[in-house]
């Protein structure tokens, strides 16, 4: 095993082209797996000295670019995120516990793509996209096309997540992230990320993604699109939760049974939507 610490994105991409090379970000997952003898990369490429990956910046139009090495604690406290984009900071604040949030990064979490992780549903609901860079150059992948299957992403071998890009959220949208876990700081049994905008009684923006209920976060853009322009009462919410539930593919694990997840997640979506509408109606 070899350890390298490049200080630029170019040098990092070059170092990643070797067989068995792996990025080392926070180490919160990778080193745990090395300690358990589950993986042994031939070359560890530490990202700690690549300054460009540690930045987050808000552009004039409200787009926020979050560098892959931003740690969960930084994202939880990110002042550049506004309105519906706050779904991401709410998710970051609910990951694990303070020491793990001081280590783990958004790039590492998304590259690992644990189906119960908190960022994937939040990024789907925020309509975020990934900026990836490899030997062939840069490409952009929408979050919905990035998380593919159990622990499987659109990353190609030798490719690096450079940043996560959040488009500006429409003004006066709210973002929220609700997580059900056995104890605070555990991985989710189920989670709901949403971005909602209302104009009086009419729904003008709707994005709901459910985590930990299948290999990748579940979102039903088709039904969301149908609901835009109308009210968001019991009937409409029911249409969305039924459609989401159809797309669930949960597993039984130590945290909960698949059956429990199927029952609880639609109720979490309903509650999150009711609460978000309340928040909007109380905001002057």
């Amino acid at each position: 095993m070899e350890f390298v610490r490049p200080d630029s994105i170019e040098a990092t991409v070059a170092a990643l082209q070797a067989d068995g090379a792996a990025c080392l970000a926070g180490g919160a997952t990778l080193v745990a797996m090395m300690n358990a003898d589950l993986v042994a990369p031939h070359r560890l490429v530490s990202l700690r000295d690549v300054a460009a990956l540690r930045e987050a910046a808000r552009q004039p139009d409200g787009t926020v670019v979050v560098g892959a090495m931003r740690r969960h604690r930084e994202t939880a406290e990110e002042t550049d995120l506004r309105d519906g984009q706050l779904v991401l900071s709410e998710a970051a604040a609910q990951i694990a516990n303070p020491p793990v949030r001081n280590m783990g990064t958004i790039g590492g979490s998304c590259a690992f793509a644990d189906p119960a992780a908190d960022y994937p549903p939040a990024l789907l609901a925020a309509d975020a996209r990934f900026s990836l860079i490899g030997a062939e150059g840069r490409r952009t992948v929408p979050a919905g096309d990035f998380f593919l299957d159990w622990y499987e992403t659109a990353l190609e071998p030798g490719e690096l997540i450079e940043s996560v890009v959040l488009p500006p959220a429409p003004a006066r949208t709210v973002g929220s992230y609700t997580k059900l876990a056995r104890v605070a700081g555990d991985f989710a049994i189920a989670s709901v990320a949403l971005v909602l905008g209302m104009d009086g009684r009419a729904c003008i923006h709707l994005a709901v993604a459910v985590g930990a209920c299948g290999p990748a976060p579940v979102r039903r853009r088709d039904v969301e699109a149908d609901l835009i322009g109308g009210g968001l009462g019991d009937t409409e919410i029911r249409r969305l939760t039924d459609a989401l539930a159809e797309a669930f593919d949960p597993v039984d694990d130590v945290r909960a049974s698949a059956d429990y997840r199927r029952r609880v997640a639609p109720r979490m979506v309903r509650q999150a939507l009711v609460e978000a509408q309340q928040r909007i109606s109380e905001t002057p």
Partner: protein
Amino acid sequence: MTGEPVTLRVNGAERPVAAVAPWTTLLTVLRDEFGLTGAKRGCNQGVCGACTVTIDGEPVRSCLSLALNCADRDIVTVEGLVPAGAPAGALAPVQQALAEGNAVQCGFCTPGILISAHALLRRNAPLTVDEVRAGLSGNLCRCSGYKKIVEAVVSASEARP
């Protein structure tokens, strides 16, 4: 050990190691090379918090930090909570508070708790019970003495000037 040389800054002192393998964790180097056995290896998976140290002032897991990735960082272990040169047996205020509050049972979790608590106490305001519970949520105590631990840290925060 095979590997490369590295110098780590631990509790204010520069400490060289002749050869560290890439997979060697900070926890292993602290315990096996430097004899700093305050940080404990409970799970080696980031879950229990017994190995918690601060790096550049923030509590992190030393079992999930690779030693070679810690060069040029400021590492503080429980042994470093008392300033160098203090009389033998001197305790930091947070250590005093846990001792006086009978907040230690077997003591395995205590070094990690002290590091997390010390980081919390750097904030000026007195801490609430909820803030302390959230701040210590990454440190498990198998003896389940949480109530006294939390009370001791709250009282240490109130005693601050």
